[in-house]
């Protein structure tokens, strides 16, 4: 079964797989998480703001994005981002946006919907007395959120946010559909060039498995560490 398993093809392509592919995957994961959390928090604040209209807009956005497959959203933005760029810069023809830029926009917009649900749960988990106390101390809405509510919401939700980041890390492999060489894309390029599908895909699976399980183990450790005792 593994008689003509070629380990050398893996060894030869290691620099390409990790310095190009994994580098792309990890950068995309990190930046999308950051952007997703920032925008997700803003959306969550909109939903909880008490303004009917803002809340409705945010709610529709979240429900809309969450009912679409990521693959379809990737295609949407792959074709749409050049036109958005043209509109923003006022150029006469669609702007050429690199693979990285277009997938970053996609993932931030897509993941913001998921992160906003996490942050909403986090904000709602803060007891009512906290913002009330902040207001009694004379803090403005902004200060209440900045110094009282959000720090605690982040802390409570840290394990969930990190778990979502692991999901996001796995989801970045879907940029394969628009032929972007992330880690899986790089593995698949080598696999098809050398006719070594079995080796490359098994190796890719192993790498994803090791990274994701180590990360989720670390999250579980962290969870017991940061849990606030009440």
């Amino acid at each position, binding site marked *: 079964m593994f008689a003509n398993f070629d380990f050398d093809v893996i060894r030869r392509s290691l620099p390409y797989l990790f310095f190009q592919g994994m580098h792309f995957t990890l950068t995309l994961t990190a930046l999308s998480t950051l952007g997703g959390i920032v925008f997700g928090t803003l959306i969550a604040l909109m939903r909880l703001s008490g303004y009917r209209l803002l809340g409705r807009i945010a709610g529709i956005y979240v429900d809309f994005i969450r009912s679409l497959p*990521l693959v*379809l959203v990737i295609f949407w933005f792959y074709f749409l981002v050049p036109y958005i760029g043209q509109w923003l810069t006022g150029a006469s023809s669609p702007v050429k946006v690199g693979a990285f830029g277009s997938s970053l926009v996609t993932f931030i917009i897509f993941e913001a919907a998921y992160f906003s649900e996490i942050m909403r749960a986090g904000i709602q988990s803060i007891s009512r007395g906290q913002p009330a106390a902040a207001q009694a101390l004379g803090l403005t809405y902004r200060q209440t959120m900045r110094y009282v509510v959000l720090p605690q919401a982040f802390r409570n939700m840290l394990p969930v946010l990190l778990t979502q980041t692991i999901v996001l890390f796995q989801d970045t492999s879907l940029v*394969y559909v628009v032929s972007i060489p992330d880690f*899986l894309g790089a593995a*698949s390029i080598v696999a098809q060039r050398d006719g070594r599908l079995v080796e490359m895909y098994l190796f890719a699976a192993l790498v994803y498995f090791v990274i994701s399980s180590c990360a989720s183990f670390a999250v579980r450790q962290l969870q017991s560490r940061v849990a606030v005792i009440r």
Partner: protein
Amino acid sequence: MNYHWNWHIFLDPNPMGTGTYLDMLLSGLVVTIKTSLLAWIIALISGSIVGVMRTLSSRAASWIGFAYVEIFRNIPLLVQIFLWFFVLPELLPRAAGLWLKQLPDVPFWTASVGIGLYMSARVAVQLQAGISSLPRGQRQAGTALGLTTVQTYRYVLLPMAFRIVLPPLTSEFLNTIKNSAVAITIGLLELTGEARSMEEFSFQVFEAFTAATLLYLLLNVVVVTGMRLIERSVAIPGYISGK
């Protein structure tokens, strides 16, 4: 924007000779539904078995359940589908591999099995949580009545657990539908795939994707509405969600 909108494109005949472009998208929708349903059946059956295993007192069973969940959860779905599609036929004995490659509709079966097993890990986790949320007394009462372990699960624990975890299972079913779009990578012409090929034939990219988006939203609404009805009729009296 110098993009030429043409909403009449849906009524134009498609180059495959199978009717209009709209027919093409609708046939994609049917494939999406079929793939999701088969995947969901697979996910429910194997997920239930694994979920039950994780709650058994046997060390080995719960360890196997744990390993199963970890493996299927920590490898991206796309990689799993590639493993089933490209790698499995090569690892099997030659004859079996050839037979597998020559099956009609390989992408459909591979996608259903691949997505089904991927989702089964999630179903298992939900069901395990449902079973462990039951008071210990239920299991003990079953034992005290002289029920065997199988009977305890069949008549006492599972009927309660499934009804408790129905709402999270609904969202897992919605995830299954969304995940079926990943099958485009192995050439399955489901909804996203048909939208993509419509874009390639007609160059009307935004019309094609708008239609696909609307169909996904519609499918979502239908499933959510249907499941709410089921959830309401099976809700356990006395629980917050119950009557």
